[in-house]
């Protein structure tokens, strides 16, 4: 075997060993990654947000991070848990991102130890497809436990944290920073579709990138500026 193919085979083997626990769970799921937008999916190693894994979202702005997280949870396709010391997720707003109230379960865990335990239990349950923990998890060991729990259960785990300039090491598969962006459409008296800046800070096999995105609820797609032109039905109004 020549050198490049040997290296490729070794890479594949290491990849399998690293995600060994996820193999059974991934085999259960029909789609192994949650699609976000074609341009973003191309940049991610798994072709989307990988299932059976933990992803970290630094919330530079609460609304943008919530919208992005709701989008990912909605596209996971099944029952979703939202765990926080005081959960304030509201189903009327989340419906616009595709997450219906019958799939959402809220969990109130004032103590950090209880919240981590609840997240682990939720990720291990095979019937749960997504779980979000809205809490600062500073302990790397705890985050690693959640990653292992996600691999065992097959759900996508999201860690929502407040934004910091130096986030430190992470056990999550990818790390994002979500900030709000002033929308280009709409005027002084009309808000258009919400616009965010989605920044991929870390990802296995991906380089850091940033995308200006807009959520088009009517078409259920995440539009990227400068990507394929929006369909003609959407009128862009300049103030």
């Amino acid at each position, binding site marked *: 075997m020549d050198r490049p193919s040997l290296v490729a085979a070794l890479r594949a083997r290491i990849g399998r060993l690293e995600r060994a626990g996820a193999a059974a769970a991934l085999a*259960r799921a029909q789609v192994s990654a949650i699609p976000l937008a074609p341009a973003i999916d191309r940049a991610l190693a798994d072709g989307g947000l990988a299932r059976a894994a933990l992803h970290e979202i630094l919330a530079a*702005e*609460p*609304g*943008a991070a*919530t*919208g992005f997280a*709701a989008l990912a949870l909605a596209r996971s396709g*099944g*029952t979703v*848990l939202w*765990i926080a010391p*005081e959960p*304030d*997720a*509201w*189903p*009327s*707003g*989340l*419906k*616009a*991102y595709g997450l*219906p*109230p*019958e799939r*959402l*379960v*809220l*969990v*109130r*865990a004032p103590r950090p130890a*209880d*919240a981590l*335990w*609840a997240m682990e*239990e*939720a990720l291990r*349950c*095979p*019937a*749960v497809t997504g779980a979000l923990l809205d809490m600062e998890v500073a302990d790397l060991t705890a985050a690693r436990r959640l990653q292992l729990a996600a691999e065992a259960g097959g759900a996508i785990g999201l860690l929502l944290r407040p934004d910091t300039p130096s986030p430190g090491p992470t056990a999550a598969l990818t790390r994002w920073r979500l*900030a*709000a*962006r*002033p*929308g280009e459409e*709409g*005027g*002084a*008296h*009309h*808000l258009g579709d*919400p*616009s*965010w800046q989605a920044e991929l800070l870390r990802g296995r096999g991906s380089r850091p990138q940033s995308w200006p995105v807009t959520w088009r609820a009517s078409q259920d797609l995440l539009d990227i500026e400068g990507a394929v032109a929006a369909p003609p039905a959407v009128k862009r109004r300049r103030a």
Partner: protein
Amino acid sequence: MVEARRFLALSLADPARWGAFALRLSPLVSVQPPDLLLLDITGIAHLHGDEAGLLAAAEALFARHGVVAEGLVAHPPAAAMALRRAGLRGILAETAGPVAALDIAALPLDPPMQATLRQLGLRRVADLLRQPRAPLVRRFGAGIGLALDVLTGAASPALGFLRPPPLLAAKCDFLEPLTTAEAIAPALTALVADLCARLEAAGQGARRLTLRGFRADGRVQEMGLGLAQASRDVAHLARLLLPRIERLEPGPGFEHLSLGVLRAEPLGAVQAGFAGQGAAAEAAALAQLFDRLATRVQAWRLQPEPNHWPEHEARPIPPALLPASPITPPPGWPRPGRPTRLLRPAREIQAVALLPDAPPSLLRIGRQARRVRAAEGPERIAPAWWRDAAPSPRDYYRLEMEDGARLWVCRIGFGPAARWFLHGHL
């Protein structure tokens, strides 16, 4: 053949304190102040050999704790109690004779009525039973008739039992009292396995369990467990019960553990293979998850309501979804422009608006001043005016700030008295 009911009347000092302890002998215990415990022992006698064995075991159990207890086994229960209070002990197959010989003081009658009866020459229960009932009742009231019927067994007395009897129970005695959680855990697991085997044989699943630990000092520790979905899965029940051992106080140690099923539901046979697929398996897995989460945290789903008031647009309901009552949003739900996060309570902020009913142009949240770039609104939401003490109407604005952040802000009141609140993030 219907088995005749048998009752054990135990007289001892302070029956209220030893009532729960007597649950070790029988599931149906009634405290009869000031000095009696009444146990329903129908069908239990064979566990101790025969009724004599049961009586000896009961008296010995109390004697071990330094309580002098004397018992009488008889039927009906009121006769057993009256005869025990009159001093009889042992086992009585038939009570008509001894009851007839009782003095009328054994009946729950007022002293004036008793004095009148003695004056009339009716000193024994036999005398009263010989009298025609109707004139007796007409003279002394219906109470005397009921008391006589209860004593002879023609009517059943109103007995209040301490605890509801379990449908199934698994029990275990220990030679050495258990004091540590590590010792209690395997015993509890064995009880759960025994109980689940019997539930399977009966085709039932448990919904409500009760665990009772009888301590070596005569006190009883109890713990209950409820399940969202009927289950007889040994691993699931053990995982729910074992952490709760921490809440028990063994004190000098548990001599006897009893695990009972208070409520059960029919549960069909579950196929052992291919258990991972299917909507029913998913629902079962979710129900087990919610059972486990309920031990440490609170979980709920939100049911959409046809209510325009923002805080009441959705109502919390238990998380286990029943197939008979799914969550369906009412038509027109949700209203457009609602936030993804609703702050509770709403945060008071300062805002500057150019006109009284115009959207704000500047917000001061905490110490930060932020300029408003675009605004939609106002959306006036008025409360239910037909209720007393309704809050004031609110004008909601959807604001986009300079940096792109979107906020759901409301104003209560007008002009200088206006108050602004940040109610949510969009």
